[in-house]
C-alpha cells in the first residue's frame, strides 16, 4: 500500500458507497398514460403510437401499427370526422395535430408502395359469415381473418364498400382508393360474395356451416316525411340519389334543387347536385347552423361551392316547379316552432335527406334477437340475443359514421374470436388519461398546423375530382412531429439529463430508461420536467 500523506488515514473511496436513495420519501415511476387522441378514436386506433414512427420517418412501421386497429387508413384519412383532433392536447397549445391528414398520407403511401397485411401463421378452422361489406363488415372480416378464422362476406350490392360507396360522394373519397383498400382485405383470404343478399340469417348460417355470424347490413332505407305534393312534383330521397351516382343511373334533378335535411347526407346531395350542373342547390333545414348535425367543415366546403342554406325552414307543400316553405322560430327549449309565415321557392326537384332506417327483414324469426327503436339490440360484446350472432355498424345503436362502424367491426371480431373459443373477451384495463395539465409544454417547439391543399372552387362546382388534397412527405413528417406524445415516453432524454443525482439509467434506443433507486433522492425534477407526462410520483412505504 502506498504511504499516505500527513494526517490521512483512510484510502480514498467513491461516493457510490453512499446510497442516497435512503433519503427518499417519494419515488418517480415511469407510466404510460392514455393520450386523448387514442381515447377519442371510435376505431380504437393507437394514434400516438403510430405517430411515433411517422415522426422518425418510418412510415411503414407507422402504417403497420395503425392497421392493427383500422384496416382502411386511406379511406379513414379522407372521411373520418377525426374526434382525435378535437380532443388533441396540442389544440390547447396552438392548433391540434393534423392526425387525419397524416393518416391519409400513410394510407396513400401504403397503396403506392403496395404494403400488404401479414396473414396469420395458423388457421383456427372456424368459419364466420359477415353480412354486409360496409365499413363495419370489412373491419370485422379483416380482424377475424387476422385471427385465423375463415371469413365469408355476403354483400347484397354489386360492389363492396357500403355507405363508403353509396353514401359518400367520390369527390370526398375517390373510388380507386376504396377499391384498393377493400382488395387488400380480400387478399388476406377473405371470400367476398357480391350480389348475394341474405334473406334468412339462420338458414344462411346453417347451410354454410358457419360457426358465427356478424351482421352489418347498415341503414339504407330512406326516412320519409309527409309533404303534400302535387302529382307532377319531383320528390326523391338522398339514398337513391347517391346510390344512383354509383350505379350509373344518374338522377335527373333539374336546374333548381332543394334538399331537405340538416345532416352530412343532405350536404353530400346538395354538393353532388351542384356538380351535376344545378344552378341552385338549396338546403332547407328547420333549425339553426349551431344545431345542424352535419360536420362544420363539410358545411363550410358546401358553402364555398355555392350551396345555399335556408335556416329555420320546413317544407309545407311541393308543387310542380316550386315549393312552399314555412319559417320557423326556436322556442325556449330550442325546438323549432311554426310561425305561419310562408315563402315560395322555385324547385325542379326535392330531395329528402331525413335519415335512414335499417332493413330488418332478414332477421325475422331469429329466436332471442331483439329489436328496439328500429335497431338491433346487442350486449357489450356486440352479440345479439341469439348466441353466435353479432351485429354492428349503422344497424345497432350508436353514432352512424364510418369510424364508429370500423370500431364496431373490430370490437365484434375480438368478441367473436373469444366466443368461438368458449371464452369471454375482457377489455384490457385502460391507462389513466394524459390530460393537458400532465404535460410540460415548455419543451415543445412552436409550430402551426400544416394546411392541406384544396381544389379550385370552379373545379369543385363542375367535376367530381377530390376536393381536399394530401400532404407530401415533408409536410406529413413535419405534422407528425407536432405530436406531443401525451403520456408516452418519446425518449427525449430529459429525465436522464435533469437528474442531479445521475439516478436515471439510459437503456438505449427504443428501450427507454430506468431509475437507479440506490441514488434517487426523490426530488421530483424528472417528473416536473418530463414534457409528455410519462413519469409520476408515488409515495415510498417507509
Amino acid at each position, binding site marked *: 500500500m502506498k504511504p499516505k500523506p500527513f494526517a490521512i488515514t483512510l484510502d480514498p*473511496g467513491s461516493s457510490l*458507497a453512499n446510497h442516497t436513495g435512503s433519503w427518499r420519501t417519494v419515488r418517480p415511476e415511469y407510466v404510460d398514460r392514455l393520450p386523448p387522441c387514442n381515447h377519442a378514436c371510435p376505431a380504437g386506433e393507437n394514434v400516438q403510437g403510430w405517430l411515433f414512427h411517422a415522426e422518425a420517418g418510418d412510415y411503414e412501421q407507422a402504417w403497420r401499427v395503425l392497421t392493427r386497429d383500422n384496416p382502411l387508413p386511406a379511406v379513414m384519412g379522407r372521411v373520418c370526422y377525426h374526434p382525435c383532433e378535437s380532443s388533441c392536447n396540442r389544440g390547447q397549445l396552438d392548433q391540434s395535430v393534423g392526425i387525419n391528414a397524416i393518416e391519409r398520407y400513410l394510407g396513400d403511401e401504403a397503396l403506392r408502395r403496395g404494403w400488404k397485411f401479414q396473414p396469420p401463421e395458423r388457421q383456427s378452422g372456424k368459419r364466420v359469415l359477415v353480412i354486409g361489406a360496409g365499413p363495419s363488415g370489412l373491419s370485422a372480416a379483416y380482424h377475424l381473418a387476422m385471427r385465423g378464422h375463415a371469413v365469408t362476406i355476403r354483400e347484397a350490392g354489386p360492389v363492396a364498400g357500403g355507405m363508403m360507396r353509396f353514401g359518400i360522394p367520390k369527390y370526398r373519397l375517390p373510388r380507386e382508393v376504396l377499391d384498393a383498400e377493400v382488395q387488400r382485405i380480400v387478399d388476406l383470404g377473405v371470400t367476398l360474395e357480391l350480389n348475394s343478399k341474405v334473406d334468412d340469417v339462420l338458414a344462411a348460417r346453417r347451410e354454410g356451416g358457419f360457426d358465427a355470424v356478424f351482421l352489418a347490413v347498415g341503414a339504407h332505407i330512406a326516412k320519409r316525411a309527409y309533404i303534400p305534393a302535387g302529382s307532377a312534383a319531383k320528390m326523391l330521397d338522398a339514398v337513391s340519389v347517391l346510390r344512383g351516382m354509383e350505379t350509373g343511373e344518374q338522377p335527373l334533378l333539374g336546374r333548381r334543387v332543394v334538399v331537405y335535411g340538416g345532416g352530412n347526407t343532405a350536404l353530400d346531395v346538395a354538393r353532388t347536385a351542384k356538380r351535376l350542373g344545378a344552378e341552385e342547390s338549396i338546403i332547407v333545414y328547420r333549425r339553426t347552423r349551431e344545431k345542424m348535425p352535419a360536420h362544420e367543415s363539410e358545411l363550410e366546403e358546401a358553402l364555398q361551392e355555392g350551396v345555399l342554406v335556408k335556416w329555420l325552414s320546413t317544407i309545407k307543400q311541393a308543387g310542380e316547379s316550386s315549393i312552399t316553405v314555412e319559417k320557423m322560430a326556436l322556442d325556449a327549449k330550442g325546438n323549432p316552432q311554426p310561425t305561419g309565415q310562408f315563402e315560395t321557392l322555385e324547385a325542379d326537384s326535392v330531395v329528402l335527406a331525413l335519415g335512414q332506417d335499417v332493413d330488418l327483414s332478414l332477421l325475422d324469426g331469429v329466436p332471442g334477437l331483439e329489436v328496439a327503436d328500429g335497431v338491433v339490440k346487442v350486449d357489450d360484446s356486440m352479440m345479439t340475443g341469439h348466441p353466435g350472432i353479432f351485429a354492428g355498424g349503422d344497424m345497432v345503436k350508436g353514432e352512424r359514421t364510418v369510424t364508429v362502424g370500423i370500431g364496431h367491426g373490430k370490437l365484434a371480431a375480438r368478441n367473436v374470436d373469444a366466443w368461438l373459443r368458449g371464452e369471454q373477451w375482457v377489455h384490457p384495463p385502460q391507462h389513466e388519461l394524459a390530460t393537458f395539465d400532465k404535460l410540460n409544454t415548455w419543451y*415543445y417547439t412552436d*409550430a402551426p398546423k400544416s394546411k392541406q391543399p384544396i381544389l379550385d372552387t370552379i373545379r369543385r362546382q363542375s367535376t367530381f375530382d377530390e376536393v381536399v388534397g394530401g400532404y407530401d412527405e415533408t409536410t406529413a413528417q413535419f405534422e407528425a412531429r407536432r405530436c406531443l406524445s401525451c403520456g408516452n415516453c*418519446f425518449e427525449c432524454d430529459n429525465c436522464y*439529463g435533469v437528474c*442531479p443525482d445521475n439516478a436515471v439509467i439510459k437503456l438505449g434506443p427504443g428501450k427507454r430508461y430506468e431509475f437507479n433507486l440506490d441514488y434517487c433522492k426523490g*426530488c421530483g425534477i424528472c417528473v416536473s420536467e418530463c414534457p409528455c407526462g410519462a413519469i409520476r410520483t408515488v409515495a415510498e412505504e417507509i
Partner: protein
Amino acid sequence: MTHQPIRFYQTGTFTVGNRLLAQEQRSVQAQAGRTNSLNSGHRACQGCGEALGARYAIDAAMDATNRQLVAANATGCLEVFSTPYPETSWQIPWIHSLFGNAAAVATGIAAAMRVKGRENVRVVAQGGDGGTTDIGFGCLSGMFERNDDVLYICYDNEAYMNTGVQRSSATPPAARTNTTMPVGSSTGARFGQGKNLPRIAMAHEIPYVATATVAELRDLEAKVRRAMEFRGARYIHILVPCPLGWGHGSAETIRMARLAKETGIFPVFEAEHGEVTNVSKIRRPLPVEEYLRPQTRFAHLFKPPGHPEIIARLQQLADRNIRRYGLLDTEAAS
C-alpha cells in the same frame, strides 16, 4: 450565435436529447457515455441546482477538452457535498482549495502545466457565489487581470447556503436570508447593494464571459465549448436555484431557473473581450411576480398587506436587463 436552436423536431433542442437528431447534433448530457464528472452518492440536497449545473458544465468541459481537464474547487456547498472524507464524487482530477483562492490555485496549475509542456491539459476553477463574489474576489480579479489560462465557473445560488443561508454579494434585493430577515421596516436584502460579477468580469476585458442557467442545457454546453476555444481568462456564471435557500419545491429547480430567465431577472448572454456578442432571447415574457411568488425567500412581499412597491422595483430591475441586453425579440419568439 454559439448555440443555434434547432426547430421543428418536435421538441427541437429544448429537451436534453432528441431521438430525431443526428448523433453529432445531440447534447453531451444525452450521451449514455457522458463522463458523469460529479457522480451519484453526493450529499447535495434533493433537487440541488448546483449539483446539476456542475455536472452539466464539467461534463461539457471534459467533452470539449478530450477529457484533459483539472479542476480546482473553492470551499462551499459543491465542495462539501461532493467530498466528505474519504469519499469523492469527482471522476476528474480535482483539488480543493481554500474558500478564497480557487482562482489562484487554478492559475498555479495552469502555470505548472505550461512548464511541463502539457498545455493540452485545461484548467477549470469553480466555486459558489460566496467564494467567487465575496471571499475569492481578489484572487479572481487578479486571474482576470493577468489573463491566466483558466476557465472560472461560478455556480450562483445567491447566498451562503452551505452554512445556513446567509447573504452574499450575489443575493438579490428583497430576498430573505438569515442575515437579511424581513423584520420591522426591513424587507429583506437591500436595494443598491451587491455585485454584478459578469459585468465586472467584462470590465476586465477578458476573452470570454457568459451567463447561463440550468434551465437551458444546450445553451450552457455551447458556452462551455466556446470558452474552451479561447486561451486566457474566461468566466461563466451559472444560475443554480437552491430549493433550501430559495424555499421552493425540490422539483421546481429547473422551473425557477427558467422563470428567472423568462422574466428578465437573470439575463443570459455572452461577451467577448468586454463586449456582448449574443443574448438568449426571452421566449415567453412573464412578469417578475411569476418568479418571486413560488419562493419563500420572497414570501414577505406577498403577505398582506403586501409590498407592491418592492415588486415594482424588482420589475424595474428586470426591465432594465431586458432593455440593456435586448432580451425581447420583437419578431416571432421561438
